[in-house]
């Protein structure tokens, strides 16, 4: 047992060791991937070892990882920093507020990824519409807006009031809006100004002639302890990407068979920042699959094994005391009510990003099914068996070993089975905190709208769950006599 744990610790240790290279992170959407990859490749080309921590699960997780020193920088937007992170009224307060928490914005990238209104080219031309103010004369446009933009206070309602528009709108999923435009089902939708689709479709962007939308200037959000040589390299990228360039990069990344690495390398070569950069050779499908699967097994295996040891130990200790047992169950149930992505985010200030916070979160999630099942099982043991065990002169330890735990085993195993299967599913979210595993292709695939990539994570994850179930069947056969199996 101990030998096994030691071996496991040895396997884990290289993964746990803090790495020296500059860590550039990205959020889980295409544009963030591309920008972070460009910075990473350029840093490496300039002889500064850098690593791209791809697809952390959103603004909060990136920000927490940044303040915890787990990453050095990531691409962010001034509007997001102002509203979502710092909650400031005015862009002018941005820099001092960031400095107060040892962060700063490095050189801007040169584009503003704000909301825009995109209209079919033919409709705009026929009606002579060039700017948003031209819409005030219109009455019968077919407008479909993404749900969030349509509902947000600073979205369509405020825009319509600002420009005095009286137009009917319907809600639509943003990803579907481009198809609806192409099929001429609708005339206009809202978009992000750098959406890759805008570069390819026959659409015009209406000018925000009365400056309603705030600026979402792309910048590097970085720690103030970022070394000067890193700053110097990033300065080479200053104002090097405008809206249409970013649109083209996003469009290229959205094409299947076009890796993010390739898109970034092509950009750097084309701009003359690098020569003949190839983009790191993409690993083959099978080796990636194997890596992700092994990482996934490691994440869930260690988490569930630790939860089993701690959970069963705690159960055995508290079970004789009903109040303590109830308290323990309540704590575990409480943990379970925290949404998994939030629990992962909570782990970052404590454990940084990567395998450890994911394992801790999975461990906490696995505790409840294990503890609940084993407590119930121990409580359900018939009193006569406890009386007999005592009357045979057994010590408490002997009673547990020879009577209580074997009698509780069917329930304990089903608790472990539930914990293991749930963990395999939940562990796909671990990619959001940079822990890798089968969630990595799923998260990336969702961001790139790449079904093939999603399946590369989803299918092995489902397979693992089925295998785990079968393994528990075999374990039951080994440990429990046939007449006691459930």
């Amino acid at each position, binding site marked *: 047992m101990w030998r096994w744990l030691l071996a496991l610790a040895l396997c884990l240790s290289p993964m746990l060791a803090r790495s020296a290279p500059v860590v550039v992170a990205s959020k889980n959407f295409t544009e963030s991937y591309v920008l972070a990859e460009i910075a990473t490749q350029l840093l490496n080309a300039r002889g500064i070892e850098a690593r791209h921590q791809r697809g952390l699960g959103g603004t909060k997780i990136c920000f927490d990882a940044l303040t915890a020193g787990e990453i050095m920088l990531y691409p962010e937007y001034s509007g997001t920093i102002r509203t979502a992170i710092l909650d400031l009224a005015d862009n002018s307060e941005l820099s001092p507020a960031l400095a107060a928490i040892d962060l700063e914005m490095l050189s801007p990238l040169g584009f503003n990824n704000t909301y825009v209104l995109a209209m079919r080219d033919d409709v705009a031309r026929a009606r002579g519409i060039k700017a948003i103010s031209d819409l005030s004369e219109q009455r019968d446009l077919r407008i479909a807006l993404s749900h969030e933009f349509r509902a947000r206070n600073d979205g369509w309602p405020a825009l319509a009031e600002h420009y005095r528009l009286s137009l009917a709108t319907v809600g639509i999923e943003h990803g579907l809006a481009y198809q609806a435009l192409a099929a001429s089902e609708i005339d206009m939708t809202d978009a992000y100004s750098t959406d890759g689709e805008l570069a390819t479709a026959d659409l015009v962007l209406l000018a925000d002639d009365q400056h309603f939308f705030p600026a979402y200037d792309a910048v590097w959000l970085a720690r103030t302890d970022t070394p000067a040589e890193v700053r110097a390299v990033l300065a080479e990228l200053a104002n090097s990407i405008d809206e249409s360039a970013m649109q083209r990069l996003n469009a290229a990344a959205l094409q299947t068979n076009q890796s993010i690495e390739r898109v970034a390398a092509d950009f750097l070569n084309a701009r003359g920042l690098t020569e003949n950069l190839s983009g790191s050779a993409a690993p083959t499908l099978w080796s990636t699959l194997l890596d992700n699967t092994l990482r996934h097994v490691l994440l869930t295996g260690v988490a569930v094994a630790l939860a089993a040891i701690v959970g069963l130990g705690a159960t055995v200790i508290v079970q004789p005391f009903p109040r303590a047992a109830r308290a323990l169950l309540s704590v575990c149930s409480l943990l379970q009510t925290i949404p998994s992505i939030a629990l992962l985010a909570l782990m970052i200030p404590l454990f940084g990003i990567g395998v450890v916070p994911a394992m801790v979160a999975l461990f906490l999630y696995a505790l409840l099914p294990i503890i609940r099942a084993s407590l119930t099982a121990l409580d359900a043991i018939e009193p006569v068996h406890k009386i007999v065990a005592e009357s045979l*002169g057994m010590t408490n330890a002997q009673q547990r070993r020879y009577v209580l735990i074997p009698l509780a085993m069917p329930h304990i195993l089903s608790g472990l089975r539930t914990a293991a299967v749930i963990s395999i599913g939940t562990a796909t979210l671990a990619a959001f905190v940079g822990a890798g595993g089968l969630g990595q292709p799923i998260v990336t695939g969702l961001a790139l709208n790449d079904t093939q990539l999603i399946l590369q994570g989803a299918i092995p994850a489902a397979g693992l769950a089925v295998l785990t179930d079968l393994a528990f069947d075999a374990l039951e056969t080994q440990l429990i006599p046939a007449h006691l199996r459930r």
Partner: protein
Amino acid sequence: MTAPASGTAVHLDEVGVSIQDETILSDLSLEVADGACVAVIGASGSGKSTLLRLINGMQRPTRGRVLRAGRDVADLSTQTLCQQTGYALQQIGLFPHLTVADNIGLPLKLAGVNPTEREHRVTDLAERLGLTAAQLARYPHGLSGGQQQRAGLCRAVILEPAVLLLDEAFSGLDAITRNEALAVFADFQSSRRFATIMVTHDLNEARKIADWLVVLEAGRIVRQGPRDDVLTDPRHPYATALIEAFR
């Protein structure tokens, strides 16, 4: 206070038990000689099971003393006392996850007896009490009620304890099976030197194997003596009624 006679396996000396202000047993005095078989008869709730547990330490006296072979049980741990005492009860309590042989052999395993000798002793004893090798290999649910009862009895005596406690151990069986079991037990008991204290609500059961009868009513001994004396001269109204009921 009476001094314990030599050869006394169990001696209860003016023992009382109260649990949370409720008096369960009071003023019990009883001597059980080595090899004797004592039957304690009484209605349910008269404190019979508590009396038995005083002897293996699972219940401690509130008043008075309990002596085992002259030693006060206050000086002995429950675990030690239990290891020296066989205990069989109506619900039997064979462990469903162990085969019958493993159930019977469990006390030997706990005592550190090696597997070969364990198997040997289990087979011998089981044969003596009428269980076959095939029955030993099964799990408890594969045995009839009477066979399970015998297995429970085997487990209780496998360590050859000085004292055997039977708590309504034969009550769950039908009349014919019970008679067979009682006959097998009486035969077995007479060949060994352990003292038996059985509690039962069934006078017929007591009459068949006990040489000393104790009548318990509401936690007090109302009559005790050699079997035939008590049967012919009950003296106490409750004892009289009990004997009348089984005539």
